[in-house]
């Protein structure tokens, strides 16, 4: 054990003050389900760690048509809210019971692929995040948050304090395909949502997990759907576009070749759930 100090701030201001003091020397940890395995194995050797479990950042509440999710809300707590059903679906399909009791929604955004399934749902929901420092706080769209593999918009003195999710009645499809039925890393995760202008698609959001260096939007596929009736041809074209534009990888779970094909398949299935005449299922 090489950790020299474990900071346990009791409030956001205290956490931000400690962060300003220690800067990049401190490893920020919430539920510990990603950081602790690396520390236990000696892969990560931080001298100072800040734990957020007692900082009072958890909690879910409705606020002005949006759902505010505190960064350290556990995945189990996320399962208990009813305002955005697809977030329950995403949480239920993430990790195991013990890990959901520890892992947090904010931490899920920092989980490298093929993890980070809740982040995929959040991306399709057009969520945004509040990045707070002792100087200020700014709200960044989740679509702009990721900048690369394990890199993001967060400045060294900033913490991700809360998440904002628009509440709407439009259904969101969420499909996770893994090698087991539960507690499994993703071969691919797809979340999709469309908004309608009468009989035609006004806007579409398709988010992919395990198909790039971080949860990504399938922008080409989304563009192809706008103005269509989400019929068979439109879905086939969008699925093919998503398979082309995604950037999957090979690991112990699946090959790049296989993931790319599964992106096409599961984007198609997700869109079929949203198509007119699909069996309406409250998601």
């Amino acid at each position: 054990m090489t950790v020299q100090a474990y900071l346990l701030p009791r409030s956001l201001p205290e956490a931000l003050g400690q962060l300003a003091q220690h800067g990049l020397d401190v490893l920020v940890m919430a539920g510990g389900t990603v950081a602790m395995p690396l520390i236990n194995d000696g892969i990560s050797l931080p001298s100072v760690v800040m734990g957020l479990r007692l900082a009072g950042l958890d909690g879910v509440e409705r606020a002005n048509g949006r759902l505010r999710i505190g960064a350290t809300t556990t995945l189990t707590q996320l399962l208990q809210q009813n305002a955005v059903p697809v977030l329950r679906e995403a949480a239920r399909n993430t990790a195991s019971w013990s890990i959901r009791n520890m892992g947090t929604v904010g931490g899920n955004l920092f989980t490298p692929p093929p993890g980070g399934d809740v982040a995929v749902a959040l991306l399709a929901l057009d969520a945004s995040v509040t990045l707070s420092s002792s100087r200020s706080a700014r709200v960044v769209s989740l679509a702009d948050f990721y900048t690369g593999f394990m890199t993001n918009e967060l400045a060294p003195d900033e913490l991700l304090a809360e998440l904002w999710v628009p509440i709407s009645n439009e259904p969101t499809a969420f499909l996770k395909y893994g090698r087991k039925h539960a507690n499994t890393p993703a071969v691919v995760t797809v979340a999709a949502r469309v908004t309608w202008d009468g009989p035609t698609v006004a806007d579409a959001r398709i988010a992919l997990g395990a198909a790039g260096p971080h949860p990504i939007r399938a922008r080409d596929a989304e563009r192809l759907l706008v103005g269509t009736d989400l019929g068979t041809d439109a879905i086939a074209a969008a699925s093919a576009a998503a398979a082309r534009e995604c950037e999957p990888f090979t690991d112990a779970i699946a090959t790049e070749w296989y993931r790319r094909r599964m992106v096409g398949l599961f984007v198609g299935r997700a869109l079929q759930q949203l198509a007119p005449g699909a069996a309406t299922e409250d998601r």
Partner: protein
Amino acid sequence: MASTIVTFELGGREVEVLVRPMTTLQSVLRNQLGQTATKDGCRQGGCGSCTVLVDGEPMASCLLPIEDVAGRRVTTLESLTPAEGLHPVQQAFVDEYAFQCGYCTPGMVMLSKALLDHDPAPNDEAIGQALAGNLCRCTGYRPIVDAIRHASGAMSGHDTEPVR
């Protein structure tokens, strides 16, 4: 590195330990308190053999810095086992031959106890979902599922024959 004193509740008693920063609950239980039922499996949160209950909820003790459980209630297999005899979940594991090497058993029993606290009559689907993070390489899981169903009946007062 400065050591600190952490106080928490273990099996109904207050315990106080002197620890280096970020010592895991798993390590404190096994190495400082001699409670070795909690196993030291993968240290990745991936095998479930270190499962304990914190305020009644299952958690992976290998991922939990001891400072995080200060003032909280920790339940281990040692806390669960009565002075005489066995807890109904333990008895059900014996009756159903729900272990062979026994390494996963403490974690399985703790998780089963938590499951039955939440859902006194879980179906196979609920049991499977709950057990998904606890690996067993001996039994093929079926005897463990049967043991939980058996314990469910025993604890609800409807003592059933072992499920076959």
